[in-house]
């Protein structure tokens, strides 16, 4: 029994290391509440440790769906506060020039991302940072591929309209 628990813990840590950053980004953009998003991630992983799934079709797909369901439960029970969600993106790179460019780009993207509709935001986050194909992302979002594609390209167009070509970074 002890051996099984140890294995589960290791598996869980591997899943955490591979997916936690983008799951947290996803949950934060769904909830617009970083603290609530952390709670969601905690609950999902605690449940996985307590009762690991027997098999994954796609571990990323499984985890994103689990996070989505838990986040929707939070929204339904109105357990949200209006805490700041920043920062959504890592701001430090290996050299200062890249750091500055990425930090500014991250701030701009975050600002606009949080202003577009929740459905479009979810589509963009799943496709770009969840690294899913359209069919996989549509399955996570629980909608048809056509609907997902429509949301994604509408969200992308809204971002591009506000962000331009993302070339200029002020310091």
């Amino acid at each position, binding site marked *: 029994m002890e051996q099984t628990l140890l294995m589960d813990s290791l598996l869980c840590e591997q899943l955490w290391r591979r997916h936690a950053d983008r799951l947290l980004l996803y949950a934060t953009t769904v909830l617009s509440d970083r603290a609530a998003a952390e709670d969601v*991630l905690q*609950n999902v992983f605690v449940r996985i440790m307590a009762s690991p799934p027997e098999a994954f079709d796609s571990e990323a797909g499984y985890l994103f769906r689990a996070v989505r369901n838990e986040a929707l439960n939070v929204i339904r029970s*109105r*357990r949200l506060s209006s805490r700041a969600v920043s920062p959504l993106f890592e701001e430090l790179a290996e050299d200062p020039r890249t750091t*500055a460019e990425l930090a500014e*780009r991250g701030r701009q993207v975050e600002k606009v991302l949080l202003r577009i509709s929740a459905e479009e935001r979810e589509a963009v986050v799943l496709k*770009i940072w969840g690294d899913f194909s359209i069919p996989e992302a549509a399955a996570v979002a629980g909608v048809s591929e056509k609907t997902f594609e429509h949301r994604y390209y509408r969200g992308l167009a809204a971002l591009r309209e506000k962000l331009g*070509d993302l070339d200029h970074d002020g310091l």
Partner: protein
Amino acid sequence: MTDFEDKLAELRPARAPEALWRRVQEGKLADRRWPSFRRDAVSIAAAVLLVIALYFILLPSPDPAPAALGPQGSSEELLKELKLVRHKIVMESNRDGNWDLWVINADGSNPVNLTKTPDVDELYPKVSPDGSKICFCADEGKGEAKVRNLYIMNSDGSKRVKIADNSREPCWSSDGTKVAFLRGEFDTFSYSDFATRGIFTYDLASGQIRQHPNKKIEHLYTLNWSPDGKWFVATVHGGMGFKHGILALEAEGDGVFDLNLGGCRPDLSPDGKQIAWGHGDYAIGVADLDFTSIPPKATNVHNIVESKDPMETYHVDWSPDGRYVAFSYGPKHQGKNLKGLLPEFPGVEAPGWNTTVADVSKKNTFVQVTNDGKSCKEPDWMFVK
């Protein structure tokens, strides 16, 4: 993926905190948050407290109020006044096709090219407190061999002497016997002014260079040295645990304190009692400085210049008598040239930027003292007896 999607994908999600993973390992579900009616009650209570707090804040306070600036004056009047000022201004400009240091009168008249070196780009002049010498950066070499070095010369451009290789962002001690500067972070050349690691001081008498005791100093720019020699003030960008801000650093210790001023590129007044800085891209802020308390504090924050998009304000510098500030004033750059860099970086082209002077005692009273827009920036006042 399109270019736009690629650029979005380059942003990495912020890291999930290790503390969160430890909570998962403990196997406990997250504490359920307060039900909404309790949150609403708390919100109402907070709103009531806020109203009460505002009532007291808005009552007359015994604390010093922000300095009362005089009414806005006219540019023409200021320009007439500047014709009578004996101090001069040194700046970087590429008006002759490459970067040189130019000295002008306070009203912009009588421009003189101090360097005249077609193969070297001289930048970022800092004049010694007595006005006799100028420390500056020189970008030398081409391509992979390009490097930014530090030099000192007489204020008439004579007797140029190199004091440090791969270094930048110098400032003078108040007695003019030392120069402090920042080392370049990389062996390869970078235009980014914050690509720095460590503070160093150069002793003019002995030629000795000494490193600051805090070896963790990194990514500073726009270095200043307080008149009493006890503090450095500089901008940090992504270093020492700070994202971006203006820091006070103990000159002989490890203390590093955020002055909590939004913006960058500070300049200390000649008496060290005030700080001016770029309060965002479109304003020059001024605040009182108190280095006697730990942490040091900046209070009485107010703007003396407020510009409008797209005209940016950067590189503020106090005049020797503390009555004026010079600054760089020019349009925000749009598009892809400028090597992907920003016009406020030393040695990066800034089309339409001019050296400008403001009256510190009046709100928004300033005048451009250069008008050719040939990247006239990084002004530094030169004391004249």
